[in-house]
């Protein structure tokens, strides 16, 4: 089993710390979800882990080998970036066909058959220039590169953003079948949390450049509960428990309780305990600054 280890990773842009002292271990054979609000540092973190941006502090290593300027490690990573269509810079004028050719040239384990199958299934018009393709097609290209790269550590930045529901379901199925065949490590950043939650074995929540949660998705869901009822009863039931995102209407109070090992909230006639979805948990943990 391979491991990608980040130690004390930080990234500073001018005066702003985009990523703050992140410690993170990624293991092969796992699908990670990377969630966070816009500007939380998701893309920056993926850039740093794939050595596409220099670190301000810290280190990134795969099985003890540094990633920065090390071809051996870089050959094991694929960070399939979102494609830019501004047309002034970068490869916006390049044909999709040529971009795929370049990827085939660069990734040592490139699977041309898989790439061709995905191009077909997503109906990618490879003769189009990148800047002339629509958002869905660009997402499909990003996904094709990521899956066909066969890289041990594959990062996808908002892969489903431009896809319709049918293409999204197809993507998740292809991802899962590629994953169960190969046991690669995938990190997927997304805003569309609800439908992706079930695919993530572990979830990493990023807030203002810091990791505030990094654990098994189902275990996190199991230990987060909505507690609601009469204010005093809720306060009593949740005393000593980590709570977030309290909302009051009259005498009624609802809080998101995050239970640690051994903690339990008993439901009774005055207090209702309800399960939370990953999206609810995300809002509870990251939505506090916009609550007022």
């Amino acid at each position, binding site marked *: 089993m391979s491991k990608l280890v980040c130690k004390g990773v930080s990234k500073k842009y001018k005066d702003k710390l985009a990523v703050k002292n992140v410690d993170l271990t990624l293991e092969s054979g796992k699908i990670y979800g990377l969630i966070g609000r816009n500007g939380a540092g998701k893309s920056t973190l993926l850039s740093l882990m794939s050595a596409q941006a220099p670190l301000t502090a810290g280190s990134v290593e795969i099985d003890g080998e540094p990633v920065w300027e090390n071809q051996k490690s870089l050959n094991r990573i694929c960070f399939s970036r979102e494609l830019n269509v501004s047309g002034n810079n970068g490869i916006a004028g390049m044909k999709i066909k040529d971009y795929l050719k370049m990827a085939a040239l660069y990734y040592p384990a490139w699977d041309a058959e898989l790439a061709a199958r995905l191009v077909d299934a997503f109906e990618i018009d490879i003769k189009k220039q990148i800047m002339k393709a629509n958002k869905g097609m660009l997402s499909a290209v990003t996904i094709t590169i990521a899956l066909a790269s066969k890289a041990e550590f594959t990062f996808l930045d908002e892969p489903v953003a431009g896809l319709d529901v049918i293409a999204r379901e197809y993507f998740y199925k292809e991802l899962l079948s590629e994953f169960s065949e190969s046991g690669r490590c995938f990190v997927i950043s997304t805003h569309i949390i609800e439908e992706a939650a*079930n695919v*993530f074995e572990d979830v990493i929540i990023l807030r203002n450049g810091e990791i505030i949660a990094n654990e098994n998705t189902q275990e996190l*869901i199991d230990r987060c509960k909505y507690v609601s009822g009469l204010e005093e009863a809720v306060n009593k039931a949740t005393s000593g428990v980590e709570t977030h995102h309290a909302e009051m209407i009259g005498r009624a109070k609802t809080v998101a309780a995050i239970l640690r090992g051994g903690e339990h909230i008993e439901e009774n*006639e005055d207090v209702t305990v309800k399960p939370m979805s990953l999206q609810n948990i995300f809002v509870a943990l990251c939505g506090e600054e916009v609550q007022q």
Partner: protein
Amino acid sequence: MKELLDEGKSIYIQIQEMIETDILRGVLREDERIPSTNELAKLYIINPATAAKGVNLLVDSGILFKKRGIGMFVAPGAAEKIRTQRKKAFMEEKISELLNEAKSLGISKEELIDMIRNGGTKQ
């Protein structure tokens, strides 16, 4: 086999319950192989590790058994076992929920028993 997954309920519990329901309904029979975790993962679009967790819960409770290198099979007497477990769960969860609700409505135990006797309809 495919049913929709609920939000907010652990996926592996739902996988466990769905396999149980299939065994009760005779969709899956004793000594039959159940779908592999990878097949379940692709069917429900869930992580294979989560599917495996649900399946393992059933192995632990003796409802499924593992044949090395082949897969998971429905154990003999699985349906009976599930029925017993569900009865127990019914008592522990549904009945206590019922009692909580009755208490907040001020329904006495006797009234509640009467209601049950009458099959939930008004006297």
